[in-house]
């Protein structure tokens, strides 16, 4: 009988407590949002299932948990801890991104820079709330609305926060259609939302080939710590645009990014073990992450309005919201809001410029923050 009792105590039923149920509910919530609501399903479904995997109560010491040395999950988590997966994802993003909308109207890149204000405002807020500098920087990068960048920087600066920060970043990216519209309506007038933008100039193939090389050199000379992310992003784009390495580009934008996304999603989800994740700090991170997204959205919109003051060629300030990256969801939200005001006004193409610039901007910001904290 004692053996039966001992066995029962070592099963999930014997080890479970309320925190596991909370995290399982979160995991099931993610899976629901991904499947039923189609909110970033490629991310939320693996992360949601990873949360379930990470929160099945297990007997410590068996080498099963993600934080136990030698476990399968621990080996897979190595790529997150060491910041290996995010650059691989950037390679795939580069190989599937068409930069021509951004190249056709380069001044819109400034909106991608303006939206990064959310990162730094949140960094200041986190410092003011008592977070240490490295953690504050990792929390701030949530405002970059770029999951791989957030994971990369956090793995370098505050590895113990990778779980909460990745979950916060991906949650808010999935909730872009909910978070951004109220801010967009609040900061723009109806007249501004009705502005029609002129078509960007056509972009030649040679420009598309030169851009990733020049962009990489310029950005990485300025922020060398962004090299792993931007190097892979621009390299992926060069593979796509050069036409002679189509097999490599095809692999990068399909099989490679899919494999890495699966492993990244599962391991990030599994890293949210209840005893590690459910802390006051995690709750603080979630609140600050939401603030970061809002500040980034507001920064982009307000800067677009500022540009209109000085420019003859007016831009619709809604597209400033797309500067937060979250490709392509925030651009879709811009299109949706613009369409609501004027069904014949198509802003998606224009919004993709700041949207892609936001990816570059957030990677540069991550590089800058990392440089500050790795300096002796």
């Amino acid at each position, binding site marked *: 009988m004692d053996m039966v009792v001992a066995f029962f105590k070592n099963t999930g039923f014997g080890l479970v407590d309320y925190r596991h149920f909370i995290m399982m509910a979160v995991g099931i919530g993610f899976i629901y949002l991904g499947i039923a609501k189609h909110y970033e399903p490629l991310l939320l479904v693996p992360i949601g299932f990873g949360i379930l995997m990470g929160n099945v109560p297990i007997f410590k010491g068996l080498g099963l948990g993600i934080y136990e040395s030698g476990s399968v999950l621990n080996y897979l988590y190595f790529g997150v801890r060491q910041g290996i997966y995010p650059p691989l994802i950037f390679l795939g993003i580069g190989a599937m991104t*068409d930069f*021509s909308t*951004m*190249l056709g109207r*380069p*001044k819109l*890149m*400034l909106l*991608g*820079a*303006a939206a*990064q*204000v959310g*990162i*730094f*405002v949140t*960094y*200041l807020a986190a*410092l*003011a*709330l*008592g977070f*240490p*500098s490295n953690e*504050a920087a990792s929390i701030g990068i949530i405002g970059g609305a770029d999951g791989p960048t957030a994971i990369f920087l956090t793995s370098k600066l505050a590895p113990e926060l990778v779980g909460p920060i990745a979950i916060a970043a991906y949650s808010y990216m999935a909730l872009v259609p909910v978070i951004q519209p109220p801010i967009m309506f609040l900061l723009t007038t109806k007249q501004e939302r009705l502005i029609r933008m002129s078509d960007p*100039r*056509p972009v*030649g*193939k*040679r*420009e*598309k080939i*030169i*851009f990733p090389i*020049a*962009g990489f050199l*310029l*950005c990485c000379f*300025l*922020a060398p710590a962004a090299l792993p992310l931007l190097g892979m992003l621009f390299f992926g784009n060069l593979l*796509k*645009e050069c*036409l002679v390495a*189509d097999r490599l580009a095809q692999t990068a934008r399909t099989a490679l990014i899919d494999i890495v996304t699966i492993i990244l999603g599962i391991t990030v989800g599994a890293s949210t073990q209840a005893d590690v994740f459910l802390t006051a700090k995690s709750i603080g991170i979630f609140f600050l992450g939401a603030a970061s997204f809002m500040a980034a959205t507001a920064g982009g919109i307000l800067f677009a309005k500022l540009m209109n003051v000085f420019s003859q060629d007016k831009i619709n300030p809604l597209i400033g919201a797309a500067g937060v990256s979250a490709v392509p969801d925030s651009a879709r939200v811009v299109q949706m809001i613009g369409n609501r005001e004027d069904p014949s006004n198509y802003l998606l193409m224009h919004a993709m410029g700041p949207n892609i*610039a936001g990816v*570059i*901007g957030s990677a*540069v*910001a991550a590089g*800058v*923050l990392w440089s*500050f904290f790795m300096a002796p």
Partner: protein
Amino acid sequence: MTGLSAIAAANGWFITVTGLVIVFTGLALLAAFIASLDKLLAFWDRGVAWLQRPRRRGSSGPAPGALAHQGPAPLPRADASARTVFLGGETLEVYQYFQWLTRRQGDVFSLSRLLEQAEKRGIPRPHFHLDELLVLGLIEELPGEECGFYRWTPGISVQPEE
């Protein structure tokens, strides 16, 4: 420590201002470079065309460096008597890509496969340009049993529009 004193103690203001300046500078420089890239390329093309002009007489093909011009594509015109076709802008650029793509298929190629490859590689308006090349007679359909397959019409030279 919390509040403004925590920000000051961690050099928060300095990091924030410096970070924002670097992000803005990086993207502004990149934007400035992109904005002038088409002008730089046009300048480059003019230089290459000027260097190659004397050597281009009598040659049957276009000078590679002088081919791609930026900006809106002027309508192509055909000079049937000399069997020379003048192409400009995007049409000329697409013509070169099509030549490169069909080289992989061999002398005889399928239009549907060509279009599929062009679309996959993001070549602009491939259907429109293919139609142009067909109308200009640069691409011809094979007769007889090979009907449905195409080849580059022999004896036609392509020159960049002045």
